[in-house]
């Protein structure tokens, strides 16, 4: 089972990279582009066939290491 994990800064926390990209998009003429958020994308193969167990493990991975929940939020899907 593969976990596809996205980690981004929480809403409300300034994302300087997102801001810089937003300005660049604006200067390219994409004046309707707003709220750019930059994040990380990770794929993890989980050696587990039980989806509930895999889900619990991936959640723990995110909480313990992959995201710093003081500043970041995460979401994932299992495929």
């Amino acid at each position: 089972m593969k976990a596809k994990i996205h980690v981004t800064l929480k809403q409300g926390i300034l994302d300087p990279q997102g801001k810089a990209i937003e300005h660049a998009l604006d200067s390219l003429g994409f004046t309707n582009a707003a709220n750019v958020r930059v994040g990380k994308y990770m794929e993890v193969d989980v050696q587990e066939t039980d989806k509930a167990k895999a889900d619990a493990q991936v959640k723990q991975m995110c909480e313990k290491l992959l995201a710093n929940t003081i500043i970041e939020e995460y979401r994932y899907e299992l495929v």
Partner: protein
Amino acid sequence: MNVGVIVFPGSNCDHDCQHVFQDVLGQSVRMIWHKETSLAGIDAVILPGGFSYGDYLRTGAIARFSPVMSAVKAFAKDGGAVIGICNGFQILLEAGLLPGAMLRNRSLHFICKDVHVRVENAATAFTGACQPGQVLKIPVAHADGNYYTDPVTLAAMQANAQIVLRYCTAEGAVTPDANPNGSLDNIAGIINPEGNVLGLMPHPERCAEEILGNRDGKLIFQSLLKAMKVNV
């Protein structure tokens, strides 16, 4: 005093810390590889600056799981003095030994320059040789020094005088312009509620002797010796 300097893969200020404690302050220093699990005989622990584990994932995020960190946590819990400098500060945050987290610098640039910090609390084990409100000139060198914590934690730290160093002008005014990285409340250094763990972004070990043209950083280490009742 026996000082333990933790060496992670990618630490690069470890020898500077060793030099200051050993050659400038005349203390005994043990370099402790991150795979070690005992801090027996150590009186104070330094987590030095650098790029532990290449800053992969987040600064300090992998180093906090190094085998030695269990011993550092136990040492801190028993009241042992711990200083985390720059990457060491980032590791202390990730390890939960200090509250908050580091964001990328507001400018997105790696900042390497002298800054001024004001001693906001001179009654700590790390600032006792300073005057209250004293302005120190100490260099910073980091890309992730934009300190963040939630408003509740910030208020608690303010109430407990845990904010020890704040970025300021040369005259000691804490202003947005004097803030190099966007750090919340101009925070440059904080301690835990118990007062035995310090994290700071500036590098005092880089300005602790006359030949380098600046000795302001020495005050941080002299404060520690004073607190540990070591005569220099």
